[in-house]
Structures are given as structure tokens and as C-alpha cells.
């Protein structure tokens, strides 16, 4: 018998019992960027039973310095991250049932996506999506292992792992201005791996039944500063997300075309409501004579148009690269879609 996990089982807080619990775990990884890549690889090597990884984006050359699941060829092939991640994770450990899903996680689909999983690992790149995941995980009673990083600084907070602890919404009374930092400060891979390692360590502790003391923790690998704050006093009895009568405000879907400026990138994303989605094949046919560098594969249509690269995904989202201006992006897309 192949003893893949013997060194992990030898670690006494895990042991054979803990390994069996890891084996039984079904984990959802929210995002296949830097944190998602790093965390998913650790969990797959640890031998979880099932892992679902979801991401809305395709690979870029600027991802490779920190997103450890991907190769140059994946970028050349313009693969969606979720597809490239699934391929690599399967090659790492065939014991694990792995599923990559190309989708934007929204109020409309988040519950359906999380359902059937026991843990959610945060690999998203924005606070809005984290608050959405916070609401969904609380509604489904699934622990959510939050993590975030920019520059050389990272923070972690496990949610739903201890009685009476605050949730992310309790800690964030107001939303910060959109992507305050990621556009400007960059990121180095050591903080990605450090942050993901802390998230996964908390997750493994929780799986194996260790006592949890949920703390908000941060570290800056460049300055050497670190902090660990016991936030239990910040639990709000009136919190709309985790009180006795929660309303889960971030799960309310909107019916309009939603736009988002993607963190750290010159890119605007447009999302059409479910009943007004743009289909790949007809779209590709209709723009063939208008655009250049047209690529049409089973996952997406990509092209160049007026010096912008546009990518339409099968789930009906479109990325407009080369702009942060939402109205300009809408205008460019309107030029093709009428």
C-alpha cells in the first residue's frame, strides 16, 4: 500500500483519526488566484476527499510570479484559471475528487455553489465577495476561512469555528472604497504562501477537531510587524449577517447588468442577469468581421477591439481589458452588442 500521508499521520495532533477526517472533508476554494492556488495545492496534497475550485478569470502573464498552479503554456492557451487549476491539482494527487468551475460567484449562485461542502477557503480578491461568502457560509453553517493579502502584508480570520464569535460583517461596519490598495502596491509571493498557510492550518485544525480560538491575525513579511487580535468582543447582537434573525444582506441579487473593476488590473467585468445572457457561438460569428485575434474555445470567446481585449465567458460574463472606466467599458461592449 502506498503511504502518501504517513508523515502527516505521524504528526500527533492529526494522527490516523485526523487523516481520516481530512479524507472525509469536502472543501470549496473561492477563487483560483494567488491564495486559492496556494491553499488548494496544500489541501490536495493533504488528501482531502473533494475539492471544488471556482474562478471567473483567465490566466495572464502577470499572474505567474505568485499563482503557483500555473505554467507559461496555460497562459499561452488562454485557459480559465479554474480549468488550469483542476488539471494541475489532479496531477498532484489522484486521490482527491477535484472540480474546477468557471464562474463568477454572485448572490444568485453562491448558495448553490457552496452547498455540499463543509468548509470554504477564501481565495477571492475583494472585500465585497468576502462579505457575500460570509453571508452564504453563515446561512449554510459552513466555516469560512478568510484570508487576504497585498504587498508584503496579509491577514486571516476563521469565521464560524467557535460559539459566539463575530463574523466578517461584525468587524466591517462600513465597506472600504473599492480596491484601495491592490492597483497600486503590488504583491510578493511569500506573503501569498504565508497567508494561505495560515488559512489552511486553521482549516486542518478545525477538521481534526482541535480547539479553535478565532483571532484576527496579520503579518508583514517585509517590516516584520505582526498582530493577533482577540475580536470576540466585536460580536454584534444586531449584526444582519450573524444575529439571531439574520437577513444576509449580501445575498440579495440585483436584476441589472452589474459591473466590477477587477482588483489590481486594468479590467472591467460586465455581468448580465441570467435571463439576458450572451451566448458564445452566435457572439463569435457576429463579430468575426469586426474584431481581430478572435479566439473561440469551449470556455470563452476572446478578441481585440479598438485596442481593448474582450473576453466573453460561457456563463455570460465579459471582461474588458485596458480600462478601469466602467462607462467606457459599457460603451466598447455596446459597440459590439448593439
Amino acid at each position, binding site marked *: 500500500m502506498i503511504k502518501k500521508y504517513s508523515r502527516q499521520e505521524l504528526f500527533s495532533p492529526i494522527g490516523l483519526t485526523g487523516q481520516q477526517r481530512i479524507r472525509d472533508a469536502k472543501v470549496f476554494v473561492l477563487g483560483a488566484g494567488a491564495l486559492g492556488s496556494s491553499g488548494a495545492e496544500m489541501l490536495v496534497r493533504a488528501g482531502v476527499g473533494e475539492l471544488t475550485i471556482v474562478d471567473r478569470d483567465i490566466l495572464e502573464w502577470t499572474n505567474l510570479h505568485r499563482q503557483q498552479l500555473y505554467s507559461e503554456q496555460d497562459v499561452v492557451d488562454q485557459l480559465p484559471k479554474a480549468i488550469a487549476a483542476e488539471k494541475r491539482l489532479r496531477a498532484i494527487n489522484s486521490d482527491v475528487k477535484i472540480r474546477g468551475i468557471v464562474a463568477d460567484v454572485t448572490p444568485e449562485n453562491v448558495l448553490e455553489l457552496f452547498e455540499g461542502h463543509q468548509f470554504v477557503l477564501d481565495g477571492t*480578491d475583494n472585500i465585497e465577495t468576502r462579505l457575500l461568502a460570509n453571508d452564504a457560509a453563515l446561512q449554510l453553517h459552513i466555516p469560512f476561512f478568510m484570508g*487576504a493579502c497585498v504587498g508584503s502584508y496579509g491577514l486571516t480570520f476563521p469565521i464560524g469555528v467557535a460559539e459566539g464569535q463575530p463574523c466578517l460583517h461584525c468587524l*466591517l461596519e462600513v465597506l*472600504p472604497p473599492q480596491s484601495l490598495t491592490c492597483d497600486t502596491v503590488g504583491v510578493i509571493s511569500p506573503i501569498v504562501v504565508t497567508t494561505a498557510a495560515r488559512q489552511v492550518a486553521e482549516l486542518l485544525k478545525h477538521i481534526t477537531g482541535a480547539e479553535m480560538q478565532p483571532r484576527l491575525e496579520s503579518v508583514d513579511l517585509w517590516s516584520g510587524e505582526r498582530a493577533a487580535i*482577540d475580536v470576540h468582543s466585536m460580536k454584534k447582537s444586531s449584526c444582519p449577517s450573524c444575529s439571531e434573525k439574520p437577513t444576509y444582506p449580501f445575498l440579495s441579487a440585483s436584476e441589472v447588468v452589474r459591473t466590477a473593476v477587477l482588483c489590481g488590473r486594468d479590467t472591467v467585468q460586465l455581468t448580465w442577469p441570467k435571463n439576458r445572457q450572451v451566448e458564445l457561438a452566435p457572439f463569435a460569428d457576429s463579430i468575426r468581421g469586426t474584431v481581430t485575434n478572435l479566439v473561440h474555445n469551449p470556455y470563452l470567446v476572446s478578441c481585440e477591439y479598438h485596442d481593448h481585449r474582450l473576453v466573453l465567458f460561457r456563463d455570460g460574463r465579459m471582461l474588458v481589458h485596458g480600462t478601469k472606466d466602467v462607462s467606457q467599458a459599457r460603451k466598447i461592449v455596446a459597440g459590439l452588442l448593439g
Partner: protein
Amino acid sequence: MEKTIDLNGKSYAVIPEVETVQQLLEHLELGDRILIVEKNKEILQKEHYDAPIMDRDQIEIIHFVGGG
């Protein structure tokens, strides 16, 4: 008087102009961020950021970021 505090696990010399937590946050250019601030193991609510900084205070600051 020269004040030295423990800031996020490191010794930090506070300049004389910085007398309160709010002034420290502004000096660190964290004034407009979403923050959790702990002073001597107690979480400080925003309305108490005018608390004076004393020599050998232990202050921890965590700011929220978007990336990942």
C-alpha cells in the same frame, strides 16, 4: 518626554507631535483605512481613538485589504 511603544510586536519611537491613537493612525497613513485597533489588549472603538498614547503602550493595528 520620549515615548516608546510596542507597535505590532516591534519597538516604536513615537514622535512628540503624536499624542493620541488617531494621530498615530494618521502618522502611519492608515487614517482612511478600515481598521481594528487594540490598545493594551483592549479593542478600541473608533469614538475612543482620541485616547492618549502612553510610554510602553502595547498597540496592535490590523487593516483590511482587498487582494488575494
